[in-house]
């Protein structure tokens, strides 16, 4: 079983992204589930969502405290929330940032907590493809490229179950663009 934690802010679609991800795993014949952290529902407030997937039924009904991967939908969250806490296993971080991968100022703790990082300017891609800075679908494209755990096609096919039909085309474009654009680097652990 692998565990994924998504970090976003209210209104950025992190919860829907977690549901799309579950559907993508199920399309591929796996089991998966996701649940949001149930806090105060406010636009802009930090929130998280938890995804688990496996070849066997998922039985745990708890939050994810030790993720194999974190997806950080909003670049400003890294200074507000301990997004890398508890990483285990492959220790992958998929980040939304406009900086190039060698220019990004990662927190000091990061080389110890993250093994592999994928960075994409999801905000720019979302504005170009959808017209609004809603980065959830772009980040899913970046997730697929960075982790290799799920096919981009399975993610894109899952959009129609969760997204407004009018926004489908733009979101598919955004996911594909982020899949291509994400820069992936293995970090040297100290």
């Amino acid at each position, binding site marked *: 079983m692998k565990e994924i934690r998504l970090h976003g802010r209210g209104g950025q679609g992190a919860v829907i992204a*977690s*549901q799309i991800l*579950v*559907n993508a795993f*199920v399309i591929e014949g796996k*089991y*998966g*589930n*996701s*649940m*949001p952290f*149930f806090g105060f529902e406010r636009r802009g407030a930090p929130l998280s969502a938890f995804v688990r997937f496996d070849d066997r*039924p*998922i*039985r*745990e*009904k*708890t*939050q994810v*405290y030790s993720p194999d991967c974190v997806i950080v939908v909003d670049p400003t969250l890294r200074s507000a929330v301990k997004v890398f806490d508890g990483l285990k296993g492959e220790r992958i971080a998929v980040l939304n940032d406009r900086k190039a991968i060698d220019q990004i100022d990662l927190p000091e703790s990061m080389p110890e907590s993250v093994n592999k990082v994928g960075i994409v300017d999801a905000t720019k891609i979302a504005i170009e493809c959808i017209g609004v800075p809603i980065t959830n679908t772009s980040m899913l494209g970046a997730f697929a490229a960075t982790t290799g755990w799920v096919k981009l096609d399975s993610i894109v096919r899952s959009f129609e*179950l969760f997204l407004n039909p009018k926004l489908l085309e733009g979101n598919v474009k955004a996911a594909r663009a982020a899949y291509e654009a994400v820069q992936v680097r293995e970090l040297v652990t100290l």
Partner: protein
Amino acid sequence: MVTEQVKHTSNAARGVGKVTVMDGNKAAAYGALLSRVQVLAAYPITPQTPLVEYLSQFVADGALKADFVEVESEHSSLSVLHGASLAGARTFTATSGQGLALMYEPYNRTPTIRLPIVMGIATRDGISPQCVWGGHQDAINVRDAGWIQLFVEDNQEILDTVIMAYKIAEHPDVLLPVNVCYDGFYLSHMADRVEIPPQEIVDEFLPPYRPTHQILDPDNPMSIDPLTPNELFMEYRYKHLQALQRAKQVIADVDQEFASLFGRGYGGLIEKYRMDDAEIAIVGIGSPVGTARVAVDRARDEGKKIGLVKVRALRPFPREELVEALRNVRSVGVMDKNVCFGWGTGVLFMELRSAMLGVPKPPATVGFIDGLGGSDITMEHYARAIAIVDDSANGLAHQEITWLGLEEE
């Protein structure tokens, strides 16, 4: 009445359905859809709100041929269903927390006039301190209003149990309403893999409702729930209680029939997990049972002879089944997501302890309270609980009731 092996994947060829992803509210809505309910009335309240939206959508799309009555309160939603059910319709509603409180009067009347209404409760803690999050307190507080109350563990079980609930409620030996209680947020908002059973097989399992008892028929007028004096009142109460006890066999039978058609059974009143050679056990109810399975597996890997008993039916209380399931264990830990104010314990703990009265060499019982107000019952909390149960089995000192969420602070 207990099956040791519960199948979680479908292998009944005819009953295999389409696999998709949905949250618990949608699973409940699909259960109502596949049961071909004819009248719906519901008022939105967190965390049940999406269920009302899904049902409205089903009706608007024509997928569900039902009258959806938009009401101004929960008191009205259940009262509307009283009329519809008395006119012979299969009916559905759902609520949570404060909504259930506002429904209190018709809620109490539903079972006494023996209406086979099925109602979801997306369980919510509170009412005060003000809280929208999960906890079993709302459903627990009305456990003795005379309804059947079934608690479920995951979204597939929500969908399947709504369908089974009609078969139980409408059974001539029962004729009582059923609550399908699913954890608010933990299940209501959890996206999960769910198999939608084929409609034609559900139809075979659950034929249309044909009332023969309480009917509002202009050609054959009858008075429903008139002033009921003394001995007649006592007789009604007695018969109601008898019916609730008869429901035990029906719940078990319906589960077996469901399993034979769809390949998924849930054990009826309770489910035993790894209990064969267990020396200690955890007893749980609702969605935390899923986490408990993993905790039990891990403790088994460490060499502990531990099992798990899941309580599906809180009402009627599976007294004999629990006594039988736990007769060979030395100590039992009960996980409650509610409180019993009168005893300073959880309700399930106190009821299990009552069930053990008079049993020769009963197991020690240890109580745990956790998961109130949406707090997370973690794997570490279960590990701690198991350690305490182990201490109790070994005669070591331990508290009778441990509040797991508060211990760490």
